[in-house]
């Protein structure tokens, strides 16, 4: 077998050009398949790791996926808010252990600004119940204090005491519409989490109110610039509304009744969702598309295998002579069969190996870009059992495909004997 393997290898090396093309076809198809698979599982894990410990999220009525996306993942915007009295009512419910309000809608140089209370740092958890850690500095205390995520600090080059100007709206550079006279100061920097928290600027709820003084109508009041910091501090900055509320319950068992109670709240209509259930709903939507993509990529792998078959079949006629030489020096028909099967298997194996290497290089490059854009780090994209199974499956499929030309050569070598009429 060692002899045949070495012959197969040398034969492939002799046809480098076409073999490399076939190898590439297999490698690209395998990379596509694993890419789809890894992006899918990586994104799921990334999303699933973003929030934990929060039993319910309450917002204005909307789709549950939508509420989850804007409140936790900072994707999209809230269409309506919850009034402050309603927040207080919910926070004081008997079954609620804690309720953290968040207020979204502003940005700082492309990073979302979130108003909340310091309770957020105690109750927001990610991954497997991991706490947010302030790597440097402290929580916000003063009206114009800001605690920034790790990516915000890194990308904007901010450190403790860096001044920052928050702008209204979500534009990357909100020229002219900036809240220029509301200078904030970085007082804390969070340790990296691999979640959208890294790309968030955290301030107090009062600060959100403060930056909107003079903007009550939604557009800038001509007098807004004349309002000084001192004047703002003297205002009543109790927020009028919040975007969403993160809730922890005293007893997990009450989750369904609490949710029902909130959903049927008399007065202001509300919506409470369970993060994991909303995520499952999201995945059930994307699942169809993912499966379709996977199916397509499996077909692409099949095309890669067929290209191995094609390249061997097309070489078979010109190799008839070679086969009868091998027969003459003592090769059995089984050796001829094994030679062609091994050639196909080698191309399949090496192609799949190359494909695996390729997708890991691509993910190593693309991963940080995705994280930078969405704050979600793709996790579990390292070498996985799926990679190994794919390698084995592709090699096996190539060996099986190789059996077709091998069988033809086998039959032919019996019929040809030693003499080939060329």
């Amino acid at each position, binding site marked *: 077998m060692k002899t045949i393997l070495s012959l197969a290898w040398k034969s492939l090396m002799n046809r480098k050009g076409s073999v490399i093309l076939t190898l590439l076809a297999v490698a690209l198809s395998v990379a596509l398949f694993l890419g789809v698979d890894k992006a899918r599982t990586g994104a799921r894990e990334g999303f699933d790791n973003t929030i934990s410990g929060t039993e319910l999220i309450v917002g204005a009525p909307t789709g549950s996926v939508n509420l989850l996306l804007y409140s936790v993942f900072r994707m999209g915007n809230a269409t309506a808010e919850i009034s402050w009295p309603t927040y207080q009512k919910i926070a004081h419910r008997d079954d609620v252990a804690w309720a953290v309000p968040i207020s979204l809608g502003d940005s700082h140089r492309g990073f979302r600004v979130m108003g909340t209370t310091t309770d957020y740092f105690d109750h927001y958890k990610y991954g497997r119940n991991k706490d947010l850690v302030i790597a440097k500095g402290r929580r916000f205390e003063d009206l114009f204090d800001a605690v920034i995520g790790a990516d915000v600090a890194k990308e904007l080059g901010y450190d403790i005491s860096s001044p920052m100007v928050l702008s209204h709206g979500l534009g990357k550079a909100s020229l002219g519409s900036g809240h220029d006279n509301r200078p904030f100061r970085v007082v804390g920097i969070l340790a990296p989490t691999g979640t959208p928290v890294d790309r968030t600027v955290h301030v107090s709820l009062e600060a959100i109110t403060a930056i909107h003084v003079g903007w009550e109508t939604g557009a800038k009041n001509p007098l807004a610039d004349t309002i000084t910091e001192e004047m703002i501090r003297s205002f009543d900055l109790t927020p009028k509304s919040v975007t969403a509320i993160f809730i922890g319950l005293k007893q997990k068992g009450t989750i369904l009744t609490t949710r029902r109670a909130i959903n049927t709240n008399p007065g202001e209509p509300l919506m409470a969702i369970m993060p994991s259930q909303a995520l499952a709903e999201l995945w059930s939507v994307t699942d169809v598309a993912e499966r379709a993509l996977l199916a397509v990529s499996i077909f692409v792998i099949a095309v890669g295998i067929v290209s191995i078959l094609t390249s061997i079949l097309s070489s078979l006629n010109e190799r008839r002579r070679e086969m009868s030489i091998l*027969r003459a020096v*003592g090769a059995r*028909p089984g050796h001829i069969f094994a030679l062609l099967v091994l050639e196909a298997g080698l191309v399949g194996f090496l192609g799949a190996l190359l494909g695996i290497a390729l997708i890991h290089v691509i993910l190593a490059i693309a991963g940080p870009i995705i994280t930078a854009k969405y704050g979600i780090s793709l996790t579990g994209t390292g070498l996985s059992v799926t990679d190994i199974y794919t390698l084995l499956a592709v090699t096996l499929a190539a060996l099986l495909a190789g059996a077709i030309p091998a069988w033809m050569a086998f039959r032919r070598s019996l019929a040809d004997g*030693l003499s080939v009429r060329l």
Partner: protein
Amino acid sequence: MTDPVISIEELRFSWPSGGEVLNIERFDLNAGERLFLRGPSGSGKSTLLGLIAGVLEPGAGHVNVLGMDLAKLPSARRDRIRADHLGVIFQMFNLVPYLSVVGNVTLPLKFSPTRRKAISGDTDEEARRLLARLGLTDAALLDRRVSDLSVGQQQRVAAARALIGGPEIVIADEPTSALDADARDRFIELLSEEAARTGAALLFVSHDASLARLFDRAVDLREINTARAEA
């Protein structure tokens, strides 16, 4: 006198498609003998060599190689006998294109432990020694791709391959038909010398009767084959 290395009795062979190709009452090749078998194309000589090599099965009769009747042996056994005891030289395109010159020469050893064991030292050394005896000494030449060698050089490589490991029988099917007269005589001379040295019997098949003078004995296939040749 020792037993013949090849002994054919009452051999009959037909292709499935029709007419009888071979009907040979008796044909022997003695140990160490250099025999010229003359036959024009279409006389069934390739078929005869296929039967001796054990890749074809006779319809009737016996093909004894070294006392073993191939007709009674399973094909795997016949393959084994061919690997161990037979060296074959074709008319042309004798070499595996993706192997080196030395790799081509040592190829039979990979399929025959018996022939491998017959060489005491390094097999590549033995291949180079054989090639040198056949006039291929240039080291640069041995590194070339086999397809870059001249036909004459290729045939010598094929001869070295047939001889390596000392098989008892070397059969050559028109090995000189692509060579010019000088190269042809020189090739036969070298092949004969080396066969004599290793003690191999040489069965040399050609349509060219003028070569008969270079051999111990000559047989005309048309005289021993009584099958009615069909067009």
